[in-house]
């Protein structure tokens, strides 16, 4: 909220308190001041009188003037269209520093100019508060002003506005009077509010009917004032309102606004003659429409609280009054309404009709239950003083303002334990007294009586916070918790995630984090998408309606983005959990694009193909403790997401663990991607798998014998079958089978392929003899011929 220092100074003495100091103190006490803005800025500004004014001979828009500034008469060339002899004006003398310029003595087209006649815009007044004429021309002042006076203070433009960010608990700061209490307490200064208690109590007998027919309006007070005079507001009131950005309309309307800003209680004034009947009844459940003060027609919802008179809607409660009964120049009598409405209902209605008014904001945040009385007293008094109010009738009410104040207690020990301080009883009592909490101490327990406007104080901890705020946290010395030592660590899931990330980075991939909210289309593709993806009731857009149920669908966007930005070769990965209602599943996914370029000129370039993806999966799994003999790569034929013949379903212990492979060419085209390989793994499953432990096994010191063979087999024979057949020849004599060439072409028969293998024979207990090796080799050939219909290839 915006607080004018000048206005605040009417209630609490701000002498010798600079705006910046006030702002700092408020900020450190929890009222964050976000802006300290003088309403006008400029040095060397005085009131002057134009004593001579003539068109500039060399210009079609400039004027030559002589301006009396008291101790001298200045020659000033002025460009304003409205300058004229006899005007009282604001003059910036030579040396004046204005927001945009510094004034220097100059010569404009042959004429001396020693100063500038200012518009309000030029001295920094908010353009929103100015008319077009004021923005385009100089400000013409009251002719009664005395020449030579300092301009800003004379014109009341030396005010400073503090922009305070309110925390939701301190709704009391919607009332300037509460801000005054806070400032008074912080600076230990007396607060004097112009509140004449019970001023509105008296009045002649009234025929006004006031009633509430809904629990959403527990309190409503009304008061008829039979005669008022509509006229302009007094200067000080107009200035105060304008300073905080509120337009002055007339004395009566301004009083309702002024009192709302002072007390926080929104008031509504109806034109007494325009009410359909001398009654105000609050209802809900209506479903007509209403034309509000701003002229717009709003349809009503049955939950809205509506002010009615003779069964006609005359106001949307707490938000805006009706057009039909508004105060205007012809108003002679008024009815004042002050009420409390359900904050949540006002919030809902205000949101629905998209009207956030000064009044609605206050109702939403919550009102001091006693502010109705304060506001009625203050408004009546101001109406008497500035609107010649007469024929004041008694106040009529439905519901009664509770005058009970609640009490909250706190132990001094509790204060110091929770804050970690050593506050004395005396200072605690002093703080509570300054806050008007009327503290009473008994054996270290302090009982406070909470003023009605402090809605935020309900438990001991709230009182402790007040002490903390007032002593300030600057001197609070930091300590560390004293407690039994605990061990900090990652759990298995977190540790696995970290390991996966480190390994993936080591493979040359960049980690990405993509949005969890996706378009519905993305929930229907990808690797084993979770069933029943959750969707949002009210999403930001259709693009972000669903909670993703697989990773790759959304990561493809990232791949496409980078390819579109001419980044061709990359690997990206993401580790994330997937969520639907009551399901939380950890996944890992990666996309490889282009090639792995270790050194291009040395031809150390690895294509990112199916085998690269398979390698990543195998390396990850073996590093995480899954022996590769447990892992299978099964055909993924029929896939529409992956290339059906260049992708595989990964299984561990025969259970599906994920899918890897090349993207389906049709999908790649649809996603504007050039071919990528990718994979998504349900790493959640690793958490329940038995994983290998690190264990020492002795090094085999027996000599090994290596034999190369080349086999010609049918195209359809998979290499894994060859390995299997060979390994079956001897479990403990064949240490490894390595494929080192695969050939298909002119040199082998059509429909066949040649596979070259390196076989290592080794026993672990003796050196293999020549006969043993020959026997093993022959057995190997034999097994391949028999089991695979293979022929030995002669080089």
């Amino acid at each position, binding site marked *: 909220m915006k607080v004018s220092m000048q206005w605040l100074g009417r209630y609490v003495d701000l002498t010798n308190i600079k705006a910046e100091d006030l702002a700092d103190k408020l900020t450190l006490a929890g009222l964050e001041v976000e802006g300290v803005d003088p309403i006008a800025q400029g040095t060397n500004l005085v009131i002057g009188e134009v004593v001579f004014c003539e068109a500039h001979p060399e210009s079609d828009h400039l004027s030559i003037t002589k301006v009396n500034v008291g101790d001298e008469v200045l020659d000033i060339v002025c460009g304003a269209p409205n300058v004229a002899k006899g005007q009282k004006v604001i003059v910036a003398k030579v040396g004046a520093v204005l927001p945009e310029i510094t004034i220097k003595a100059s010569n404009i087209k042959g004429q001396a100019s020693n100063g500038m006649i200012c518009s309000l815009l030029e001295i920094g007044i908010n353009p929103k508060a100015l008319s077009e004429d004021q923005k385009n021309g100089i400000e013409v002042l009251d002719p009664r002003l005395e020449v030579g006076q300092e301009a800003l203070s004379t014109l009341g433009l030396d005010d400073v506005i503090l922009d305070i960010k309110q925390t939701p608990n301190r709704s009391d700061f919607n009332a300037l009077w509460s801000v005054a209490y806070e400032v008074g307490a912080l600076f230990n200064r007396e607060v004097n509010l112009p509140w004449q208690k019970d001023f509105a109590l008296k009045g002649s007998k009234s025929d006004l009917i006031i009633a509430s027919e809904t629990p959403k309006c527990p309190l409503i007070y009304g008061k008829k004032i039979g005669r008022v005079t509509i006229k302009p507001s007094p200067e000080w009131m107009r200035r105060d309102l304008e300073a905080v950005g509120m337009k002055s309309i007339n004395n009566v309307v301004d009083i309702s606004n002024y009192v709302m800003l002072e007390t926080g209680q929104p008031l509504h004034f109806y034109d007494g003659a325009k009410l359909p009947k001398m009654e105000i009844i609050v209802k809900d459940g209506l479903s007509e429409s209403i034309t509000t003060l701003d002229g717009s027609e709003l349809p009503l919802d049955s939950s809205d609280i509506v002010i009615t008179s003779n069964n006609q809607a005359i106001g949307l409660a707490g938000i805006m009054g009706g057009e039909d009964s508004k105060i205007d120049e012809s108003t002679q009598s008024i009815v004042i309404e002050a009420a409390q409405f359900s904050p949540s209902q006002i919030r809902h209605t205000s949101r629905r009709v998209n009207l956030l008014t000064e009044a609605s904001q206050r109702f939403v945040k919550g009102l001091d239950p006693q502010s109705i009385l304060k506001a009625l007293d203050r408004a009546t008094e101001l109406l008497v003083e500035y609107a010649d109010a007469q024929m004041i009738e008694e106040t009529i009410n439905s519901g009664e303002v509770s005058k009970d104040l609640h009490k909250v207690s706190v132990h001094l020990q509790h204060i110091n334990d929770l804050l970690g301080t050593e506050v004395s009883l005396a200072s605690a009592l002093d703080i509570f007294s300054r806050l008007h909490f009327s503290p009473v101490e008994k054996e270290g327990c302090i009982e406070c009586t909470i003023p009605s406007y402090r809605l935020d104080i309900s438990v001991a901890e709230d009182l402790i*916070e007040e002490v903390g705020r007032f002593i300030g946290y600057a001197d609070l010395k930091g300590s*560390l918790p*004293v407690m039994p030592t*605990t061990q900090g660590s990652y759990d298995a899931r977190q540790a696995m995630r970290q390991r996966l990330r480190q390994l993936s980075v080591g493979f040359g991939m960049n980690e990405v984090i993509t949005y969890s909210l996706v378009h519905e289309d993305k929930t229907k593709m990808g690797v084993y998408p979770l069933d029943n993806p959750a969707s949002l009731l009210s999403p930001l857009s259709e693009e972000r309606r669903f909670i993703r149920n697989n990773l790759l669908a959304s990561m493809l966007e990232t791949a496409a983005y980078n390819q579109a930005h001419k980044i061709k070769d990359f690997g990206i990965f993401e580790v994330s959990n997937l969520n639907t209602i009551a399901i939380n599943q950890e996944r890992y996914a990666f996309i490889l694009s282009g090639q792995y370029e270790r050194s291009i000129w040395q031809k150390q370039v690895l294509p990112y193909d199916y085998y690269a993806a398979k390698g990543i999966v195998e390396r990850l799994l073996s590093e995480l403790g899954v022996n590769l003999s447990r892992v299978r790569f099964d055909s993924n034929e029929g896939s529409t997401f992956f290339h059906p013949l260049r992708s595989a379903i990964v299984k561990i212990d025969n259970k599906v663990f994920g899918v890897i492979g090349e993207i389906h060419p049709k999908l790649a085209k649809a996603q504007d991607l050039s071919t990528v390989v990718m994979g998504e793994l349900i790493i959640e499953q690793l958490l329940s798998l038995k994983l290998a432990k690190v264990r020492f096994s002795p090094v085999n010191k027996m000599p090994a014998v290596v034999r190369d063979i080349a086999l010609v087999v049918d195209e359809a024979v998979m290499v894994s079958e060859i390995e299997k057949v060979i390994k079956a020849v001897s479990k403990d004599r064949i240490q490894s089978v390595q494929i080192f060439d695969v050939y298909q072409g002119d040199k082998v028969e059509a429909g066949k392929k040649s596979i070259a293998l390196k076989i290592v024979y080794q026993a672990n207990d003796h050196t293999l003899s020549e006969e043993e090796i020959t026997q093993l080799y022959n057995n190997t050939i034999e097994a391949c011929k028999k089991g695979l219909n293979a022929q030995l290839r002669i080089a």
Partner: protein
Amino acid sequence: MENVLKEGLLAIEACQNLGDLQNVRNEYLSKKGLVTQLMGKMKDLPAEDKPAYGAQVNQIKQSLEAAFKLKEEALQEAAFDVQLQKGKIDLSLPSAMPLVGTLHPLTIVQTEIEQFFMGMGYLVKEGPEVELDYYNFERANIPQDHPARDMQDTFYINAEWLLRTHTTAIQTRTLEAYKGEIPVKVICPGKVFRKDDDDATHSHQFVQIEGLVVGDKISLADLKGTLELLARHLFGEARVIRFRPSYFQFTEPSVEVDVSCHICNGKGCPTCKQSGWIEILGAGMVHPNVLRMAGFDPEKVSGFAFGLGVERVALLKYGIDDIRHLYTNDLRFLNNFRRFE
């Protein structure tokens, strides 16, 4: 005879390569070589002269052999040097550098914070992103009808389930799981979601880390000491922090925590909007209602809690100007984050 030695040594010296040297060796030391011929002349000498003559020829032979050996070594060395020179390569050609990827900046910051707290004995607790309204709001002391629960700010899935709006949901679950047992000493990292339009400073999805300590006589001073260490760990040893009273439903008293600006050291700069301070955390003492609802007795135990936005720390630490960079995953952006701390 003197000449044989002199000429021999000169001939050895004149050799340019091992082939020449072998020829010279043959000329002098082979079976028909000059030294052998000298030795052959001995038989023609008188017996008394033979020993002296023989010794002299032997002397010549040894001298030549020694010279051959030295020359041979020198020539071998020279030949090796020539070979070595042939092996010269262009040292400036690009290397075959192993590829190393990058961790996402949010992961880097999150891990750094997690490890800082693990070092102080905190456990890392997580929870579901699709959360019950109950844990996200009710247990966090945010009652029905509180503005924070509006559709306006929260992604609801149905009346009961929502996308968690803060990691406080993990705290409320964790507190419940401890069943009133102290100490509780955890940090709770995770993705959270709010209905904000994405712009340079807002993201509908972001990462929060909250911390929670509940024990015997835990105080606001303990919170300050803990966060002072964190601020220094993240932003440098010279950092100081400042508590400003604030308001959160979950805590009472509540504070906003500012860290002295790491760019200007508190003098004022664009990063800290000239204030010298950067707001970085919300924190406070766990509200008695929260403790009570989770089965702790606020008369007997107390606790502190704090929360920070990982994006905000990443933006500040690395000088990133737009939060959306973090979710665009442009590789040119990601490749900035190569040095891990």
